[in-house]
């Protein structure tokens, strides 16, 4: 574990040093190139603002109106019926939509049930094994101005569902159920 910890700390410094040294060896005007590339970053950051504002306002409105809680309560029985513990249903539903909200829920579940409980472990695995689909889609497509997403959203959400089901099965098999 210590090696892994060290590696994850040293990773970024190694990458930065590697790129700079290799660039110098290959006689790239490193500083000028850095500035040139960095300018693109500013353009991209500005171009995603409207996409993010639109999406985040919609999500916060939906959440703070109480509609999200209402739908979760409606769906709970259905999820419980297929073996998904009621406690993690809100997390499973919010994970693809909002990363910060999901992390909040995971922290809450760990605090309430304990990190080494079945629910605590399940929440940890669910949080750690997928990314926030809607956010990734908004940022990536927004940055390059893709207006028609095609099947991307459907594919992403279905994959998230598979991730949730896989998390439950794996955690149950490895750590036993509640």
């Amino acid at each position, binding site marked *: 574990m210590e090696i892994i910890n060290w590696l994850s700390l040293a990773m970024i410094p190694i990458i930065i040093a590697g790129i700079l040294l290799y660039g110098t060896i290959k006689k*790239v005007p490193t500083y000028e190139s850095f500035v040139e590339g960095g300018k*693109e970053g*500013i353009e991209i950051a500005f171009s*995603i603002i409207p996409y993010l504002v639109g999406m985040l306002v919609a999500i916060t409105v939906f959440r*703070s109106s109480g509609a999200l809680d209402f739908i979760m309560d409606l769906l709970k029985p259905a999820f419980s019926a297929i073996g998904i513990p009621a406690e993690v249903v809100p997390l499973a539903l919010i994970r693809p939509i909002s990363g910060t909200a999901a992390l909040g829920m995971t922290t809450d579940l760990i605090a309430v049930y304990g*990190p080494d409980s079945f629910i605590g472990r399940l929440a940890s695995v669910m949080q750690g094994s997928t990314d926030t689909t809607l956010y*990734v889609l908004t940022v990536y497509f927004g940055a390059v101005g893709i207006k028609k997403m095609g099947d991307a959203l459907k594919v992403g959400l*279905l994959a998230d569902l598979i991730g949730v089901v896989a*998390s439950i099965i794996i955690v149950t098999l490895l750590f036993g159920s509640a």
Partner: protein
Amino acid sequence: MVNIIWVSLTVIGLVFAMCNGTLQDVNEAVFKGAKEAITISFGLMSVLVFWLGLMKIAEQSGLLDIFSRMCRPFISKLFPDIPPDHPAMGYILSNLMANFFGLGNAATPLGIKAMEQMKKLNGNRSEASRSMITFLAVNTSCITLIPTTVIAVRMAYSSKTPTDIVGPSILATLISGIGAIIIDRYFYYRRKKKGR
């Protein structure tokens, strides 16, 4: 699809607030959400400037080419529409690698560059191409070696074994990753059948 989701999230929320007496919260939420978006964008800007600056050096020195040539055999089957020598490959690979090692803030700029290249390949159209959908499918079910944030939370609540979820997480992410690829292929062939 996005239009429908966007409008329904907002309108359902607004109508629900009227019936539920949470109008005050919703009024605040509109501006809170907008503000959060700006905060995120500016937070991203620092990261974008730094990593895209570095990646420019990696690109011009040929490091990116070397890297993509190394991993090409594994990934070109996933993206049959992208010519193996195309710069998009290098960015896709770097993005997946950054995700894999949990370098989330390095992954986003690389992913955006990959999308930019794929858009060029698709004749700059504003529709998502096949490769883009595959890329996002793999990316959102992204394979992370060590979920550092979760481990930190577990440690904060004095877990006896904070890292014992690493194995299960990798397994779960692997399964959802494979699932994503299969679903992506299914939708692709369905589109093709319909002649789109």
